[in-house]
């Protein structure tokens, strides 16, 4: 291994070998270019070429194995939370909205919807959470939230059958913004139906009266101003998924 391996070959043989190697090299380059073009010429599935979408879905299958209830997002002391919380995105918040009339529409099954007031939600056990909120754009911020754990909420409203299903879907009252979330992430002990930020009721631009805080997902899944909550075994529609992002978007 340490000695240079020197061989002597005829000039003709040398030419043939070089020629063959470069032909193969050219074929490799052409194949790579065609592969790249092939990927991009495939039909889009929700804004991403089909082959890429397939791998992203496979990534979800692979990485969701590592999501355990005991894997908690790191929490911080209250003093670490920023006072000026970044506002990013107002899709679903632009329609006129009667805050006093708001009630959460909980669709237990098609045709079986109950309405829940903010007071009823606030009566449930309160959980406070200071964590590093992560935006899909790449920024993050340590922020302070409080609300009811979704798992506590599900217990209170006897959603046993519903939480056996694969997904939860959440939509704003005007249906302009909507997300779908896999049930293990929804039932994660840090997932909150949140009504407070920095110890005060949510500001309108942060989703008053009720938003989702889900530390195991990017911000895009932390829907503001929840209007409807429903369950499904199919993927519920998802705003950013339809625009080319990963459906899972898990952290």
């Amino acid at each position, binding site marked *: *291994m*340490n000695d*240079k*391996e*020197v*061989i*002597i*070959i*005829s*000039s*003709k*043989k*040398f030419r043939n*070998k*070089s020629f063959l*190697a*470069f032909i193969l*090299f050219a074929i*490799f380059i052409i194949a*790579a270019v065609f592969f790249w073009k092939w990927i991009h010429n495939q039909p889009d599935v929700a*804004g*991403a*070429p089909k*082959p*890429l*979408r397939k*791998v*992203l879905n496979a*990534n979800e299958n692979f*990485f969701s194995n*590592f*999501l*355990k209830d005991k*894997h*908690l*997002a*790191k929490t911080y002391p209250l003093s670490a939370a920023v006072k000026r919380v970044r506002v990013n995105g107002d899709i679903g918040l632009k329609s006129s909205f009667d805050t006093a009339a708001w009630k959460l529409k909980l669709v237990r099954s098609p045709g079986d919807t109950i309405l829940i007031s903010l007071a009823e939600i606030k009566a449930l056990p309160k959980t406070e959470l200071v964590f*590093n909120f*992560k*935006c*899909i*754009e*790449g*920024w*993050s911020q340590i922020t302070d939230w409080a609300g009811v754990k979704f798992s506590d909420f599900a217990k209170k409203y006897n959603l046993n059958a519903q939480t056996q299903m694969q997904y939860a879907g959440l939509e704003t009252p005007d249906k302009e913004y909507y997300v779908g979330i896999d049930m293990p992430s929804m039932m994660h002990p840090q997932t909150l139906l949140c009504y407070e930020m920095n110890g005060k009721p949510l500001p309108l631009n942060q989703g008053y009266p009720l938003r989702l805080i889900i*530390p*195991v997902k990017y911000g895009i899944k932390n829907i503001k101003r929840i209007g409807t909550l429903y369950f499904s075994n199919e993927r519920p529609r998802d705003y*950013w998924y339809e*625009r*080319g*992002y*990963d459906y899972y978007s*898990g*952290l």
Partner: protein
Amino acid sequence: MKKVEKKHPLAIRWFHWINFPVLAIMVWSGLLIYWANDIYRIGWGDKTILRFFPDSFYKALNIPFRLAEGMSLHFVFMWVFAINGFIYVMYLLFSGEWRLIFPNKKSLKESIKVVLHDLHLRKPVPPQKKYNAAQRIAYTVVIFMGFGSLLTGLSIYKPVQFHALTSLLGGYEWARIEHFTLTILFTLFFLVHILQVIFTGWNNFQSMVTGFFVLPAEKEVLIPSPVIANQMDLNKKEPDIDIKPTENISSNKGKNFTDEIEPEKNNSAADDPDLKINTDE
């Protein structure tokens, strides 16, 4: 007749040429992602020396508003990058090639001489095997950089699921900075690598395609020693068969080899100030 040295095994050529476009895709899709929150700069206080990146740079490369596309490419080709890199490292370890790439005791000192030589500040270069000392260090460091990119990347891709790793790297935001810095270093490595390949010339470049490096024609081929003559006869009969040196030839070759290396060694000894002082004393 051609005297050639088997330089790059087929496996290494595959790893190299697969990695080239894949690393390019990773860096480029990484830029598409980074653009969405491009906060890094070099400077202090309000003074910025270098902003990552100027708008003209983004515009020239058509980077803005392609975050979703960047993420999908990044999280698909990461697998190719990781698997190709993993097999490469396994190959180095099990084939013994690592001995030619990993630095040895002399490498650090020698690499300075190599760099000075490349900058035309110093004539002779220390004798080397497949790679010179600077190459050994660069090619080994780049393996660790690849590993670092995988770890820092994983820690910002799944910071909750791999929270221990993320904490170890200094937290989410530090891991993102580390991942970015490694990308910049990869780009610098790439630029230096390309320049060196251009300066070193065709023979070196083609060896990464063909696998063999052409050695200068030697006297030994021209001197009609009986062994060589036999070999030439053989060639006439069966020109398509590789003639590997027989034991006779290899000993012959060995002798010639020392002959051609010796004067070089003397030269370098004469020019090496350290050695010169020793001989004077």
